[in-house]
């Protein structure tokens, strides 16, 4: 997740907060538009992250070090 600095859960929580703020209804127009724009960016980040989530990093602890595991996942992963 090096290409996007924001973490998924932070993005999701910010998005939720923006929706909540907007739905409270007393946001001035300029701010509403800014929030909307920011919300759309966050929603795209969340969406992309979920859609294009790279293969899950499955590792195994061996002698205190993480090594890739050889567990087969029915062709769903890797």
């Amino acid at each position: 997740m090096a290409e996007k600095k924001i973490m998924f859960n932070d993005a999701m929580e910010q998005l939720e907060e923006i929706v909540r703020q907007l739905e409270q209804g007393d946001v001035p127009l300029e701010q509403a538009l800014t929030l909307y724009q920011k919300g759309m960016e966050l929603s795209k980040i969340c969406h992309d992250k979920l859609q294009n989530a790279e293969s899950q990093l499955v590792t195994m602890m061996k002698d205190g070090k993480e090594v890739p595991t050889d567990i087969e996942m029915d062709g769903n992963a890797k």
Partner: protein
Amino acid sequence: MSTDPYLSVKALTKYIKKKFDADPHLRDVYVKGELSNVKIHTSGHIYFTLKDNVARLPGVMFSASAKSVKFKPESGMTVLIRGDVSVYEASGQYQLYAQSMQSDGIGDYYLAFEQLKEKLAKEGLFNASHKKELPRFPKRIAVVTAQTGAAVRDIIITLYRRYPLADVVLFPTLVQGTGATQSIVKSIQAANKGEFDVLIVGRGGGSIEDLWAFNEEAVARVIFDSRIPVISAIGHETDTTIADFVSDLRAPTPTAAAELAVPSQAELLERVSNYRSRMYRVVSGTVNQQKQALNRYTSSLPLSYPERLYRPFIERVERATESLQRESLQHLKRSQERYRTLDQQLKSRVPLQRIRQSETEVAELSRRLDYQLDQLLKSRSQQLSSAIRTLDALSPLKIMDRGYSIPYVEGAVVKSVSQVKAGDRLTIAMKDGTVQTIVNEINPANGGD
């Protein structure tokens, strides 16, 4: 053999012990009775008395055998013991040496389970207040289970399908058989040293013996001490272990544990698009509202016919300009007339005569001023020389020249006999020096005071 007809105690006891040991019935006995006087030595040996309502039999179980007893022997329990009977020579007692011990009635595993459950419940390890909350979006998940088998596959595949954003780290762990307890404890401790948001402890189904490590106190304690929230998924839905009670969340199966650990990607996607449409609805609503308001204002009368707004002002400006021009013209005329009158008046009264007269007066006055100044200087100069002469005549030095002298006592001029008394030291200043003297006698003059 000695000729002595008397046996030693040792020899007799040995003989009796041999008899016991030779008896095949006593070498492997199965005996059922009630435990009493149970004492568990720190070494792990268990000492007890086995009894029924008629007889009592002392017994011992050495720690090597005692380790395999699943429950904690307590007085009052009815137990099935397999062992042998022999003589303890030091006390001359025969006793039952137990190899194995099982509880009668309910199963040993069940008993041990109930005992530990009760103990840990009393300590509060299962209290809801200790349960940690699970993170909504875990970034790193630790999985403590066997490296092979269905459980690990179920967990990892489910995690991957639901939420590929999280990293999963497997801690290969022995989950059954000898060493399983230690292996589970070690893995959970190792996971706690890393950065993990949630920890899944799991294994697939099996017999109660297979799952037994998860009923061990050490495992319960390490789960309780875990800094990371623990989801337990041990055995099938119907299996319950001590680990399940103490963990922060119990999942019925390993797959369920993975489902509980992470949110579903599909649900999240739906939620994101739901947020999107909600945001859009709110913002487009606001924009429309403002648009309508703007329309209302622009279609209002003053904004539709702007000239009506400034027409009255144009009229006022025109009127004001007219009256300004009129007024200033009149003002100019009046000023010109006034100037003309004043100019004529001025020309008719040129004051030449007065100037000449004043010139003469000025000359006269300056002449008088010079004279007065001269007089004043002369008079002041005379006053000064007269003052110098008077000052000289009054000088005390001049007076001393004529033979007067000045007595001082303690720095003060003596003006009266009352200022001195006999014995005082006087300093007498004369024109050319001073004399020190001592007062001998004082004679006030007549009428003096």
